């Protein structure tokens, strides 16, 4: 009788144990967690990249981020992904004047390039600098009504119940249960992938490495751009600083003539800081791969680079907070030939080895 009792208890104990260790479908602990550091290749002329201590780059994290970046299931109707507005072949923009979300609602701003984005986060991301980190930024488009128009609860549910994502999260972040997948981890993975988007192999880079040479026209354009060798100062290099040909600052580059700073249609930086002097100011975008990212400006108003150069050469439109460099461009009176030289120089910033890099392409294809 006593033996039967003990036997019965053991059976119950065994069943309970089995249920706990093998029957929990959410358990990921049997999958190996051995992340490997991602070999980020940074050109010697580039600065060091600030990588948050709590989100080091790993091969597994970058891989997960790449899948998430291209996964249309992150949008409410499964029609768009991050990559829909950041296409590699368009220098990680969408080559449209303004981006359109899943509901066909046009936004108010053009998609910004993501190349070298890991280096330029200092003053904030987006045209108006409203987020300070890539991890913070990556959370926003999913829920934005004019972008993916989803909600993170649904996205996280999708990721938890996906046949492959839980394992990818486990390998990237070491979670031992799929219920531990969060939007913050998804954002970390996206940020990791974005930090790998380094473009540093354009003709200008090869020239700096003494592997190629400027044509005469390109060289003249470079001198104008950077006021080098006592060339007239076309003022470009003051805001589009090397090596990214952009900056972390916000400027009013003379796009709109307004009689009052409160009359800017898009307040830009001012919409974030609440300061009227910041109205109409926008982050200086990178000019790397600029040949591929038409149309131009935060609202895509210029269809060609020729139009852009013409705008600056004219000294821009007046507003009380126009950047002092802009009216000075008109002072030097750029000739037609000089404008062509600047254009030729801009084309040396094209890096197709970056836009065609297999590591950055859609992993679902």
């Amino acid at each position, binding site marked *: 009788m006593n033996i039967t009792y003990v036997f019965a208890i053991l059976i119950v104990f065994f069943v309970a144990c089995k249920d706990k260790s093998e029957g929990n479908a959410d358990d990921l602990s049997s999958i190996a967690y051995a992340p490997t550091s991602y070999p980020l290749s940074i050109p010697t002329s580039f600065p*060091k990249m600030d990588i948050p201590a709590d989100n080091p780059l790993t091969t597994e994290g970058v891989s997960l981020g790449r899948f998430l970046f291209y996964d249309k299931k992150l949008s409410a109707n499964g029609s768009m992904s991050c990559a829909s507005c950041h296409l590699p072949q368009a220098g990680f923009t969408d080559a449209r004047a303004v981006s359109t979300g899943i509901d066909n609602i046009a936004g108010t701003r053009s998609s910004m390039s993501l190349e070298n984005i890991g280096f330029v986060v*200092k003053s904030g991301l987006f045209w108006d600098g409203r987020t300070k980190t890539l991890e913070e930024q990556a959370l926003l488009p999913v829920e934005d009504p004019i972008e993916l128009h989803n909600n993170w609860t649904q996205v996280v549910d999708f990721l938890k119940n996906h046949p492959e994502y839980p394992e990818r999260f486990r390998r990237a972040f070491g979670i031992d249960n799929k219920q531990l997948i969060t939007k913050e981890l998804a954002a970390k993975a996206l940020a990791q992938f974005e930090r790998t988007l380094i473009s540093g192999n354009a003709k200008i880079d090869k020239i700096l490495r003494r592997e190629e040479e400027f044509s005469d026209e390109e060289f003249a354009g470079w001198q104008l751009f950077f006021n080098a060798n006592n060339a007239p*100062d076309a003022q470009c290099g003051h805001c589009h600083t*090397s090596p990214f040909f952009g900056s972390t600052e916000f400027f009013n580059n003379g796009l709109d003539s307004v009689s009052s700073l409160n009359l800017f249609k898009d307040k830009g930086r001012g919409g974030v800081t609440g300061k009227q002097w910041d109205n109409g100011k926008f982050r200086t975008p990178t000019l790397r791969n600029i040949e591929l990212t038409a149309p131009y400006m935060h609202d895509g108003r210029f269809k060609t680079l020729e139009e852009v150069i013409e705008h600056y050469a004219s000294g821009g439109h007046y507003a009380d907070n126009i950047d*002092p460099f802009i009216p000075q461009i008109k002072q030097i009176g750029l000739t037609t030939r000089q404008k062509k030289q600047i254009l030729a120089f801009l084309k040396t910033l094209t890096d197709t080895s970056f836009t065609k890099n297999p590591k950055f392409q859609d992993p679902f294809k």
Partner: protein
Amino acid sequence: MKQLLFLTLFLPLLAVRCPDGTPTPLSTLNLTFKALYNAKPLVINQIVDYNGKKIRITKLSFFMSPVRFGTDSGNPNNVSEFAAQSAFIDFGDTDDSTKALKGVTQTFNVFNNNNLQTFSTGIGVDTLFLNNRKPQNFFSPDPLSDAGNYWDDWKSYIFTKFEGLMDKDGDGRFETGITIHTGGNKAFQPMFFVKKIDFSTDNTATLNFNLNVNELLKDIDLMTVNSTHQTGSLPTILKFTSNFQTALVLK
């Protein structure tokens, strides 16, 4: 057994004495800079009079390096405290009267505050150790890592920036840009200030400086020279940084 006893007694001592291998700073030294224009605190973007014309100053910043304090009032090179390799003073946020009145403060740690009575620095970026380097050699958020503070053609950091807009023709529109940037080793301007630095009971001291912007512009005619990135700009560049000798005053 002896070794065990030694370890038991000695290791905790080590842990208490040197938690991170560096000594603890004794004191805090604040340097506060207030920009003045026509003897009033300069509010960025506010309209001010310039020789009968209206201007709006939109940017004023400068590098100092190195930041050193000493005890010998007769010798700027007798340094007892090397506080920082560089500091960046930026008046960009002093865009209302309260902030302009408060000025811009940089804080430094001081390990020995006995008899400190000198502050030696240079306006610009140290020509021996720093100005031969480039932004990619520094980590963000160090201002030296910001490519916007470097000018390739000069092979130099931009030591000072003074930018603004002028209503040159008096029509109410500020259409003329002013971009007085300085840089290049020749423009580096060593500075030496002597004043007994008194630390309060909480081991904090503050040195207050006024930067007289009118004095910075002395003998520079913005009506004729409104940019320094042109051929022949060197005299203006040198004049602007040398003007710091009289424009920057320790109160």
